[in-house]
Each structure stands twice: as C-alpha cells, then as structure tokens.
C-alpha cells in the first residue's frame, strides 16, 4: 500500500529541535570545559534514572511525530487519492490498540461493557445484561478464566522484557557505571514487556466514552505534552536572549524600551493574556477553514500557535534574569579589555557574554519544561488549550471529569492521564534539579557554606 509522508508544522519544529540538540551534543562533546558540568549531572543516579524515563517518553513522542497518509484504494483520474486520516509511525506500531475500538466505556481488564444493554439470548428472549466486549478478552469463554490468563500473559511478557533488558544491559555494560541505571532499564523493559503482552488481548487501562483504548490515548498524549514543553522554548529563547542581552549591554534608551515592553507584558496575568490571544487565534482559524486540508493539520496549527503564544507570554522572566547578569558581566575586566581593544559590540556579545549566560538559559529551560506540561492540562480545561480533536492530557481529563458523577465511577481515564503526567513531570523536575545543581555556581557555594 502506498503512502504519502505528511510533514505537519509541529513535526518540522520537533525535528528542528532534535537536530539542534544533536548539534549541541556534538559541540559540547569535544570541549572539556563544557562537558564538566554534564559530568556532574551524570554522577547523580537520580538524574540518570529520570533521564532514562524521559528518553522513553521522547522516543514515543518522536515516533508519534513521523506522520503519513495512506492511499485510498480507488483512484481519481489515475492520481492516487490519500486518506484524510493522518497516521504516525507510532500508530502503525501499536495498530491493535488503535483499531480495537469498543462501543463505549469498559473498565481495565474488563470482558464486558460498562453499561447494560438489551440483547436477545439463544432462545430469542430479550434480556438486559452487560454485553461482551468485541476485542477485550474475546479469546476467553468466561470471566473465571480471566485472572489466570492475565497472570500467565503478564508473566510471559515480563520474562521476555527482562531477557531483552538483560541483553541490552549486557551489550552496553561499558557505560553501566551505576547500578541504579541497569536496574531502571531492567524494570522498564519488564514493565513494557508485560504491558505489551497484555495489551494484545485486553484493554489494560480500559476504554473511554467512544470505546477508544485509554492506554493508546495516554501514549498519544505524550507527544502533545512534549511539544508544548519544548517547542515553546524555540520562541522564548530568541526573544529572551536578544532583548535580555541588548538591554543589559547597551543600557540607556534601549534598556528603557525593552524594560517597558516586558513590564507591559508581565503586568497582564498570564492566563488572561494567553486566553485573549488564543480566543483571537480561534477566530482567525474558524473564519478561514479553507487553509486546512485535514482536521489534523488544523489541530496541529492550533498547537503550534499555542506554543507561539505561550512563548510570547513567558519570555519576560528569563529576559529579566539575562539583563541582570549582562549588566554585571559588562563591568568585568575582560569585557572592558575587549572594549578597549576595539572589539565590536556584536562580537563581545556573542563571544564573551553569551557563553557566560548560557547556564542561566539552560537552567531556565529545563525548569520551565514541567511547568508547561502542567499548564497544558489547565489551559485545555479553561478552553484555551489544544484543539478538542487533539489527544492530550488536558482533553482526556476534561472528557473524563464529566463522568465522575456516574455510579459506579468511571475512574480509569482520569487516573491514567494523571498518572502518565505525574511520571513525565516528576522525571523532568528531578532532572531539572540535577542540572541546576550542576550548573549554578551560586548554589554550589551556598551549599558548601551551610
């Protein structure tokens, strides 16, 4: 079956970021003085473990960022027609999860739907009972067989995962300096193995209102969260660096103008500013439906715009920090020496000041990431987040929240969304702390004092 690669805007930005990340790694790798703080990060087992968890999330997110559209069987005038449904490599990998749709809610590992329905039994009488699921546990005859089957499958999957993990650790034994890292890899592969083997036959985390597998939804949400957390920095960074360095270095009227701009922006409560900007974006998108050929591309453009808006409203904090640091640095002797040698301002800024503020930038970026992931859920709840058709933690929570009042409660979608978000944000927070400890010179000193 032929297909067409579909590069959504957010995909391009993701791969741009990936390329920038690889380039930065390459650059740092050759320079011992830049490598030093990273070595300090690598000494902390907490940092390495959380980095491993984050890597797993990033791999899922990257696989989910490679989109394509398959060709429809019929052709129009000899030209292939492509399906309006945009799929990703990740969708293909977990195809059963995506395809096995039930009718409506079902609990984790359930064999039957959540609600009773009228059915006719073998004798033709109408009975009200819980109908069997179309896919979840369809290979079993009766509920009584389920527990043994679940245990068997979980065990087989876990063993396979453990073996694969063991092989991986053995192959990479040169780099396994810390036991915590090997243990985490083993734990992760075991868990993935068990879940993968179970997910083939059951809905491990249940299904949602339209019968979609919740595990699939949670995994798809990862990409949205990661994009909000990272692409936003593409906007924040240039603005904060340019304005912060300019204000601190040139002082005078440049400083006044820049300070005015960021005071105006930061004096508006951020949720309101974001809400106002998103509302306006919505008007533009809704009045120009002709811009988009698929629903996915519309939802995607909205996501990119959301990142843009988040970036424009959140660069002021970093800008203020950078301005302060530049004000301090420009009085240092080596800068004054450069000035008296007649080095141009541009060169002083890029060669002498920029490298010396990079630690602030890096710390701010890793610290902001988790806040942005959490903000996405809140904004989607307020109604100014991602497009309702886009799968994200926010839309999941929003949909599940309305079902809290049901009896018995539909808890699984909420718990899954919050659980995945907690793991992602906790790993990001722990990693950010380690980065800050390693890069912040001020922090090291105060800790030595106390």
């Amino acid at each position, binding site marked *: 079956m032929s297909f067409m690669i579909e590069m959504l805007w957010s995909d391009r930005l993701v791969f741009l970021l990936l390329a920038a990340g690889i380039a930065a790694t390459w650059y740092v790798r050759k320079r011992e003085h830049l490598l030093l703080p990273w070595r300090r990060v690598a000494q902390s087992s907490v940092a390495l473990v959380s980095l491993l968890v984050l890597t797993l999330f990033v791999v899922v997110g990257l696989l989910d960022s490679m989109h394509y559209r398959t060709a429809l069987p019929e052709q129009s005038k000899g030209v292939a027609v492509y399906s309006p449904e945009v799929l990703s490599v990740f969708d293909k990998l977990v195809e059963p999860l995506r395809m096995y749709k039930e009718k409506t809610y079902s609990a984790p590992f359930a064999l039957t739907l959540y609600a009773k329905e009228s059915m006719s039994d073998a004798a033709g009488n109408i009975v009200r009972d819980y109908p069997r699921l179309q896919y979840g546990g369809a290979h079993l005859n009766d509920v009584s067989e389920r527990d043994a089957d679940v245990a068997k499958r979980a065990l087989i999957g876990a063993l396979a995962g453990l073996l694969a993990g063991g092989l991986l650790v053995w192959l990479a034994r040169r780099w396994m300096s810390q036991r915590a890292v090997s243990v985490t890899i083993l734990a992760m592969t075991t868990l993935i193995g068990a879940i993968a083997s179970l997910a083939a036959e059951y809905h491990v985390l249940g299904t949602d209102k339209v019968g979609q597998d919740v595990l699939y939804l949670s995994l798809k949400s990862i990409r949205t969260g990661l994009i909000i957390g990272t692409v936003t920095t593409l906007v924040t960074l240039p603005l904060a660096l340019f304005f912060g360095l300019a204000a601190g270095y040139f002082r005078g009227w440049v400083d006044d103008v820049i300070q005015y701009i960021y005071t105006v922006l930061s004096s508006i*409560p951020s949720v309101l*500013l974001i809400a106002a900007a998103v509302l*306006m974006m919505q008007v*533009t998108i809704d009045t120009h439906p002709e811009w988009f050929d698929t629903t996915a591309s519309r939802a995607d453009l909205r996501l990119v715009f959301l990142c843009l808006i988040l970036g424009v409203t959140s660069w002021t904090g970093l800008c203020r920090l950078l301005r302060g640091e530049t004000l301090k640095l420009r009085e240092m002797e080596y800068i004054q020496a450069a000035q008296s040698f007649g080095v141009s301002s541009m060169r002083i800024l890029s060669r002498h000041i920029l490298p010396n503020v990079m630690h602030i930038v890096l710390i701010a970026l890793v610290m902001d990431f*988790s806040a942005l992931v959490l903000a996405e859920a809140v904004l989607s*709840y307020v109604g100014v987040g991602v497009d309702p058709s886009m799968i994200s933690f926010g839309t999941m929570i929003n949909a599940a929240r309305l079902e809290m009042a049901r009896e018995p409660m539909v808890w699984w979608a*909420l718990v899954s969304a919050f659980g995945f978000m907690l793991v992602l944000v906790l790993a990001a927070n722990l990693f950010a702390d380690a980065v800050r400890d390693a890069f912040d010179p001020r922090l090291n000193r*105060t800790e030595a004092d106390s």
Partner: protein
Amino acid sequence: MIEYLIRRILYAVPILIGVNLLTFALFFVVNTPDDMARMQLGIKRVTPEAIDKWKQQRGYDKPMLINSEAGGASTFTDTIFWGKSASMFVFDFGYSDDDRSISHEISTRMGPSLAIALPTFLVGLVVYVSFALLMTLFRATALDMAGVALCVLLMSISGLFYIIGGQFLVSKLWHLVPISGYAGGAESFKFVVLPIVIGVVGGIGSSSRWYRTIFLEEIGKDYVRTARAKGLSELRVLFTHVLKNAMIPILTGVVVVIPLLFMGSLLTESFFGIPGLGSYTIDAINAQDFGVVRAMVFLGSVLYIAGLIFTDISYTIVDPRVRLT
C-alpha cells in the same frame, strides 16, 4: 515617600496605556469586528445585514482610531478605540454580551472571590513558611531530604488532580461538605472550606521548597552565628532572627499577589461553582464574550501594578534601612 508614591503611580500610566494598546491590537486589529461577528453568528450563511446589526448592537460599527466624518473632538472620541479601550481608564467596562454592566458584575463578584482567595493566601503563607522553617531546622538530615522529596512529588502533580481528587474524597466519599455551590453569610463556611484546603495543599510543594532555599541562604550569614554564640536555641534563631531577615525576599514574591486575590482563581471557582470573578472569566472565555475578557485583562494589570507599589511600601515596613526616594 508621598512624592515617591506619586511618581510610581505616574510611571504606571504609560504601562497601562501599553496594556490598553496591546489588548486593542489583539481584539480589534488581528481580527476585524466583521470576523468576530461572523464567528459569533456561525461561519456559514451569515448575511451582511446580520453582521451590521451585530456590530451596531455592540457599538463596533464605528471607525477604529479616527472618525473623519465627525467633526471636532469626536473625530477621536466617536471611535472603537475611544469607546471600547480608552474608556477602561475610568473603569467604564461597558456591557457584556448578555447586556449586563460589567462593572456591576465585577463589584458583586469580588466578595465570593475574596472569601476563597484571602483565607487560602493567609493559611497558605503560614503553612508554607512553617514547613520550610522546619525543613531548615532539620537541614541535611534524612527528615529534610524526605521533606524536599515530598515537595518535588507534590509539585509534580497537576493542580487539576488536587481539585478533582479532593472533591471526590471529601464530598463524594465522606459526604463532609457539598461538592459545589455558594451561599452568603455564615452558610458560606461549608462551601469555602474545601476549596481553601485544596488551594493550600496544592501550593505546598513549590512554595515550601522556594522558602527553604531562601532560609538556607540566610542561615550561612554572620548574624546567625552570633545569635547561636549568644546561646540562643536553634528554634529561636530560626523563627525570629532568620525569619525576620528573610522578609525582603519573601515579601518580593508575596505582596505582589495580594491585589490579584480580588481576581479569584479560575480553576477553583469553576470547579466549585463559586460565583466569583474567576468563574466569570472562564464563562466569558467559553462564551467568547470579548468585552468581559478585555475588562479582566485590564483589571488584572491594574491590580498587578498596584501590587508592585505595595511591595515597595512593604520593604520600608520590614526594613528601616530601605528609604523610598
């Protein structure tokens, strides 16, 4: 001091003008009133007459900045900018889409917002600072490590979870207080207590950790060593000496949010059905009532700037060395 305050208030004027121009640009230039009318009336099958009627009802049928047809002063006053944006400087916010005076709504809704936000703020401040001081007291021990780990865990949990989880546990499972709603007077207690508790718990993680960093920075200073050398107990050193000296960084982060308490909290109010300004804003966002959103943006920045001025005044109260000139 008076002179300083007057100057600060005058400084605020250009910033508010900036805010005003920014919201004007956002709401009227990025999308013309025609776009907004089309959006509100449904994208397809909108007649030009319907758009004109919509604009006329809301006063959007005037020129943007300069009305060349009207003579004299009304060249500038009979425009959208003057009527919708500049008028906010005298707190004339106009009418919402359901024809109620926005100023009146704001004044009646401030009360319920404050009933939640003020206790949350005060109780929260006491709890966070005490928790942080306790962690500082046991610094570099297993207890401190556990405290910090707890903080990191708490701050990694989504704020929505605290609200949904709290409502489920306290209201649905234990039936202690109603799930949502609001009543005036003494009745209000049972409605506000859960939002307040949830608000305080939700902030413990990030706030206590932040205060702990501040206290740890103070504790390495000379006066602390002197106090200890005098034979004061560690508790006394922390709760009087260190706390007092850490006031400046604490006030920097705290005082600025006090005026913003009037705005209420978007999430808490909408989940608990509190008729405050937060839920007003959320309803306006969902109904795409641009007039209300514009008013709230302007009000928010006025309160923020007031908070900055209060911060400066508070410095002089806690630290006599600070003079405002």
